[in-house]
């Protein structure tokens, strides 16, 4: 039910509320039912003519609408989520596209929207995307889902770890045993090919140039995040301790290798798509804290949230690519979303303690 709840506020929910409101104020475009990709709107060199609206950025924006709904129960967020998915389909001319990872992001967001709303179109979208995504699995590189349809022999973490999360969540909701088998098979392939067996650190991909090389020097935050998320989902279903151990190892490796050694803040990984990477990492790290109560990861997230809150743009309230420097404009949706996701995750981790709740 989407009855607005009277939620007691805390520091973290206040921050999330403000950050989300500022995001909507600057990026939500009511006439098109989409999020603007840049504020102010200008063209950038990484804008592909084929993708003027950035399908997968919109998918993460959909996730943010669901985060907000879960925090405050306001049905307006679900209405906008419904419009957004429709607009993505219309803008893209179909639900599916050439990038398997993009479809996975949208399917994950659609499934969360279904959880929140029980609107069958969201479920149908998630299942339609999943059916298409399964076609991306092939035997190049010993298995795994391809990154995109025109390049079926390039296998990477972004196209595989979110697929594990998706398949596992579909299994827990709808009980199709073949989805669980998919999740376990894909995770097994990831462990064998793209996760450092010693440290648990996750590499981005392999065979990008057709030379069977693994891109070990590509160290991105979000690859760690989605593997943590994948391991958590499988642990949730099977309760096998090795999955939880894998989630801990990768989260620890991310903290060791990606945090600023002095401030502990996560890196600025660049513009465009990379602006979203940190937001994805914190979403799944927060889930790990929810499940295990891991204190060092909780502290790491808190440090980042405090830094990011300090460095928001004073006029607009938006976060930039770096969480320890003021934003540069034009500011892309990706960076702004990562900031909002961080504050939303902190709010989800710190609901009001019992003694702070006002008497109702």
């Amino acid at each position, binding site marked *: 039910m989407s009855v607005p709840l009277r939620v007691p506020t805390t520091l973290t929910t206040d921050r999330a509320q403000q950050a989300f409101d500022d995001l909507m104020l600057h990026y939500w475009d009511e006439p098109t039912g989409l999020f603007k990709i840049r504020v102010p709107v200008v063209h950038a060199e990484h804008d592909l003519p084929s993708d003027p609206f950035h399908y997968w950025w919109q998918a993460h924006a959909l996730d943010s609408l669901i985060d907000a709904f879960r925090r405050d129960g306001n049905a307006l967020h679900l209405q906008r989520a*419904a*419009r957004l*998915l*429709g607009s993505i389909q*219309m803008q893209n001319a179909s639900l599916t596209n050439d990038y398997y990872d993009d479809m996975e992001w949208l399917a994950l967001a659609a499934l969360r929207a279904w959880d929140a709303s*029980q*609107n069958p179109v969201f479920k*149908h979208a998630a299942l339609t995307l999943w059916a298409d995504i399964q076609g991306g699995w092939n035997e190049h590189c010993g298995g795994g889902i391809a990154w995109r349809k025109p390049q079926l022999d390039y296998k990477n973490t972004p196209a595989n770890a979110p697929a594990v999360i998706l398949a596992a969540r579909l299994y827990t909701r709808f009980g199709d045993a073949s989805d669980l088998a998919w999740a376990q098979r894909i995770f097994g392939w990831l462990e064998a090919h793209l996760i450092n067996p010693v440290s648990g650190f996750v590499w981005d991909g392999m065979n990008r140039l057709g030379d069977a090389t693994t891109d070990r020097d590509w160290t991105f935050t979000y690859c760690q995040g989605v593997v943590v998320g994948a391991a958590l989902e499988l642990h949730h279903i099977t309760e096998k301790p090795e999955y939880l151990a894998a989630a801990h190892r990768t989260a620890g490796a991310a903290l060791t290798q990606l945090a600023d050694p002095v401030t502990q803040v996560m890196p600025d990984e660049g513009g465009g798509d990379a602006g979203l990477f940190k937001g994805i990492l914190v979403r799944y790290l927060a889930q790990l804290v929810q499940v295990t109560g891991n204190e060092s990861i909780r502290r790491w997230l808190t440090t980042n949230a405090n830094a990011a809150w300090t460095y928001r743009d004073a006029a607009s309230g938006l976060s930039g690519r770096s969480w320890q420097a003021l934003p540069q404009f034009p500011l892309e949706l990706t960076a702004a979303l990562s900031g909002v996701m961080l504050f939303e995750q902190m709010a989800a981790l710190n609901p009001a303690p019992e003694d702070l709740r006002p008497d109702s």
Partner: protein
Amino acid sequence: MLSVTPHLYERIVASMLDDIKAGRLRPGDRVPSEHALAQSFEVSRITSRRALEVLAQASVVKRAQGRGTFVVDDLPDLARIGVGLGINPDLAEAVPTVPGVRSGLIGLVLPDFNDSYGLQLVYSVEQSCTQKGLDLILKRTYGLRENEERAIAGLVARGVDGLIVFPVHGEHYNPVLLKIVLDKFPLVLVDRYLKGIPAQAVVTDNHAAAAALTEHLIDLGHREIAFVSPPVENTSALEERFAGWSSALSKHGLLSRPELVLSNLISTLPTQFRPDNIAADQTLLEAFVRSMDATAFVCAEYNLALELGSTLQALGKRIPNDMSVACFDVPHVPLTSPHGLPDLTHIHQNELEMGRLAVEQILARLRGESDATRRHVAFELVQGRSTGSPPA
């Protein structure tokens, strides 16, 4: 035991049943008129008319207005009818001839029934049972799974020969049902099936029906077609209606967008059709209508179409000039409408056939034929005055 003098009319009934059994009267034959019977049995015409009425009620004869009375083409089981009518005091003849029948009791378990849907189904199940000489026990569950479980367990304990179950809303699994399916108990589901339970089911092809309704609107020129329903998850009839709506849109190159769906209405669930719930649903409907640009609505249920109709009226929208509305199931009115068309364009489900087939399947199971299939009952799209071309 007191010996009861049979009514005079029963002598006529018994004699005609004998004539049929002996082949003196065959299916399709005309039977003697009221007048002729009154003369030959030396009774009043009231008595002979009563005899023919009883035989017609039991579907042994059918009366054709102005042409006379005929033996039906498809005769019911005469031995059982005789027993049911208290005729055939000879016990040797009263042995049931329907194979597998022991108690002669059939259970019908359903959430609820009303004149828009369910009434004709009950009517038809009862009629089929009576024709086969079976007695029907009816239990309503009011849409609650615990009532359904209790009813099923109770009826099985009572020794019913078979069960016809119309499952509650939103149920994909019921341990009591699963147990009797695994025990090979004669069970037929009606209206909807359960994904988690491999039982026989007699249902409307709701996917095709909703697609037909949606295509009817597309053919009229509508592009923004909304879907309005109670929660669809785990109610196969509603899941299929949703999928039918969705696939008809994509077949015509239209997208099924989440903003076109309102599926959290609860007022039409069993026992919930009350003023407070209706008002709550109408608030949701009003916000829904205002939030997007639909010109047509597919309502999964008749009462939702009524709620939508009054919501649209309150918003100053005219049906069908501004908005078209189509739905499933309308109350059965045998009158021809003065306008020549019924008010609402709708899918008419053949409840009579559904009930008849369900009883038939139970009997087939009792004969030892097993067939865990899903049977589709044909539906009909009835054009009404609530759908038209969208405003230019």
